[in-house]
C-alpha cells in the first residue's frame, strides 16, 4: 500500500498534468525607503500610539531613570540575561530584577508559574518597521526567550533609533529566521465583542516603548 505522502504527491502531479509554468514573480513594490530618519521615527511613533502603546524617549544616560519610573508599581520584573545592565535602575527594597537564562533546560530559567508571578519584563528589540508600527523580537540574548515577553502583563521594550526602518522588507533583512521571531504591533487586543477594540486579552496589556537616542 502506498503511503499518504506518495498518494498526495501523485494526486498533485496528476492534477498538474497541464504543466503550468507561471513566470518569475514581479516584485514591483517598495523594498528600500526614501524617507529621512526623522520622518521614519515620526511615523513609527505615530503608529505605535495609534495602537495604544506608550512611547517615551531616552538616552543612554536617562534610560535607567525612565525605566525606574515605568516600573513604579512593579515589585519583581524579569530581564533576559543579555540585557545591558546600565539600562536597569538600581534594585530597591521594594523592587528587584530577576534574570532569565533563556533556556528551560538550563539553570536560572524561570518556570512558567514563576513568570506568571512577576509584574513586568524589560527587553531590547532587533528591528522596528515604521510603516506598520511593528517591533521585531528575534530571541537574541537581550530579548530573551518568547515566554518572558508574553506572560508578564507589562512589557517595557527598548527600540534603538538606529534599528528603525520604514518598510517590512527592510525589517526582514535584519531578521534571522532560524531563531523564533515575534512581531509586536501594540499591546494584545480583541475586537470580538461588537467590534469594540479592547486592549489586552492574553498578552501583555501594557506596552511601553522607549526610543533610545
Amino acid at each position, binding site marked *: 500500500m502506498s503511503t499518504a505522502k506518495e498518494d498526495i504527491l501523485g494526486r498533485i502531479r496528476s492534477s*498538474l498534468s497541464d504543466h503550468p509554468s*507561471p513566470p518569475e514573480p514581479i*516584485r514591483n*513594490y517598495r523594498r528600500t525607503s526614501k524617507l529621512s530618519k526623522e520622518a521614519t521615527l515620526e511615523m513609527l511613533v505615530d503608529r505605535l500610539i495609534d495602537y495604544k502603546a506608550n512611547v517615551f524617549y531616552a538616552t543612554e544616560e536617562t534610560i535607567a531613570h525612565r525605566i525606574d519610573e515605568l516600573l513604579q508599581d512593579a515589585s519583581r520584573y524579569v530581564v533576559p540575561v543579555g540585557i545591558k545592565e546600565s539600562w536597569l535602575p538600581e534594585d530597591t527594597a521594594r523592587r528587584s530584577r530577576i534574570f532569565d537564562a533563556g533556556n528551560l533546560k538550563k539553570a536560572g530559567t524561570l518556570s512558567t508559574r514563576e513568570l506568571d508571578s512577576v509584574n513586568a519584563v524589560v527587553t531590547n528589540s532587533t528591528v522596528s518597521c515604521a510603516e*506598520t508600527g511593528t517591533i521585531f523580537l528575534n530571541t537574541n540574548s537581550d530579548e530573551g526567550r518568547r515566554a518572558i515577553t*508574553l506572560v508578564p502583563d507589562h512589557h517595557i521594550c527598548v527600540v534603538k533609533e538606529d534599528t528603525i526602518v520604514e518598510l517590512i522588507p527592510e525589517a526582514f533583512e535584519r531578521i534571522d529566521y532560524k531563531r523564533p521571531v515575534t512581531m509586536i504591533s501594540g499591546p494584545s487586543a480583541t475586537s*470580538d*465583542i461588537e467590534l469594540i477594540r479592547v486592549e489586552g486579552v492574553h*498578552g501583555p496589556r501594557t506596552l511601553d516603548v522607549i526610543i533610545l537616542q
Partner: protein
Amino acid sequence: MTAVSLGMPRVYHGEGNIFETEAFPKYAAKELTNEQLRANLGFATHKIRTKREHVVGELPDWQGLRTAGSMIKQRVMANLPEYLEMFEKNFTAAGGHVHWARNAEEANQIALDLIRAEGVDEVIKIKSMATAETGLNEYLRENGVEAIETDLAEEIVQLADDRPSHILVPAIHFNRTQIRDIFLKKIDGVSVDLSNDPADLAEASRIRLRDKFLQSKVAVSGVNFGIAETGSLSIVESEGNGRMCLTLPDTLISFMGIEKLLPSFEDFEVFLQLLPRSSTGERMNPYTSLWTGVTPGDGPQNMHVILIDNGRTAVLDDEVGRQALHCIRCSACMNVCPVYERAGGHAYGSTYPGPIGAILSPQLGGIENEYNSSLPFASSLCGACYDACPVKINIPDVLVHLRGKAVDHEKAQGDFKGGKKDPHYQMDAMMFGAKQLFSSGKLMSLAEKGLPMSKLVTGKDHKISKFPGLVGGWTKYRDIPEPPKESFRNWWKKEAPKASRRDSSERVDIQALIEQNKGKVVEAHQQAEQRGQTIAHPAEEKEQ
C-alpha cells in the same frame, strides 16, 4: 472518500465541514433573532470594509503587492510537490515531524494519536480554519479529548454551543449582554456582578484561560504561512492566545493545508503586508509569530505538522478553479459582498463562507454534491470580491466556470428541466440586475471584467435545471421565506426593503432594476453568442 467516476477515480474530493448539507439542529432553539445577526453582520462588514479601504489606500504599491502575491501563489501551485518535499525536509531538519493526511479523517486520526501519546485528555487550540474543516473538535470529543478554543470569539461560540457566523468575527451575532449571560452561565467562578463592558468580558476570558495556558501540555493550531525554503511556520493573531499556544505547551500540532506554502522567506514579506490590511483593516495585527522547528529550551520541544489534502488536489485539477487555492483567508471578499451581507455567514454548512466559500467548497467537496452545486449561483457577479482580494483571485470568473460545471453535471444526471421559470434563471436575472447596480457606481462593470457572458447567464449549456433551496445553504434558517415556495422576485420584493445598509450611493431599488434589466440577460447572452464566443479572460489590471 468521494470518487468522481467509477473505476480509478481521477480526483479525490474532501470530506468534513465543506458541504452545504449541514443543518444546525439547535440553532432554531436559540434565543437570538436573525434580525440581530443580520444587523450585527451588516455593522461588522461595513466597519471592517471602511478600515480596510483606508489602510489599503495608504500603500502606494498595493497593486504591486497584489500582483506579486498572485504570482508567488501561482508558482507555489505549479511546483507544489517540490515545495512540499522541500518544506518537509527543512522542517524535519529543524527538529519537527511532518505527517501527511489524504483527508479530514486521517488528519484527525493523526492528531488524536499524537495527543494520546502525550497522555492528556484536554488540548488548547488557536483558531484554525483547517481544524474547523476537518471537524477536529467533534472528533476529539467523541474520542474523549476536550479541545478548548482560546480565541475570544471562538471561546464565546464554544461556550454558547453555537457555530461561528463570520470567518473573522465568529461571535458577531451575539451582543455584549448575551455574551455576559453566556459567561455567567458557563464560566465557573465568574463574578455574579460581571458587567457587559467588553473590557470586563475580555478580562473574564483572560482569567478563565490563564490556567489552561500555564498547564496545558498540548496545543493544536492552524498555520497562516509555511515557508518551503526554510521550513518555517507563521501565525498571525491579535489576542496573544496564539502566542500562548505556540510557546507554553510541550507539544504543538499544526494543521496545514498543502496550499499554504510560500517558496521563500522573501515571499513572506509580501504576504505579511497583504494579509493584515485585507483582513482586519489594520496596518499590522498585534502579534505575528514565526518559528523554524524546535528551539532548545524555548517553546514546544515536540513539534508536528499535518499536511492536509482533503480535496485540495481536486481543486488543483481544475485549471480555472485552482486559483481558489491561493486564498489566504483574509475575509475581504465577504466584507464587500452584497449577497453575503444579506444572507449572513451563519446560514452556511461549510467552514468557508462568502464568495471564497462559493468557489472553494464545491471544488473541495465536488460540485456533484446537491447543495454545493447551488453555491456558485450565490453571487451577483458584481466583481467587488475580485477587487478586494489581496491575491487577485478572480472569483467571478471561477463562479461562472463552476456554474457551467454544475449544469453539465445536472444534465449528465438527467436532472435537467431548464426553461425561463427555472429558479436558476430567475436568480441569474436578478443578480444580473444587482450587478448592474454595483457596477454603475465605483465598481467596474462586468464587461470591463471581460467575463464570459454566455456562461454567466445560464451556464455552459444555456439551460439550468434544479435549484436546491435559494442560494443553497446560505439562506437556511434565516427569517426569509423558503425560496422554492415562491418565485424569486416575490421573495426579493419582500426582502429588498430590509436589505441595504450600504451607503446611499450604492443603494438601489432592486425591483426596479430587475424590471429594467428584464431583457438584458437574454440580450447579453445573444450578443456574446453572436460574437462567436465567450469574451476573453479578464485583462490584467493596469497597475504599474
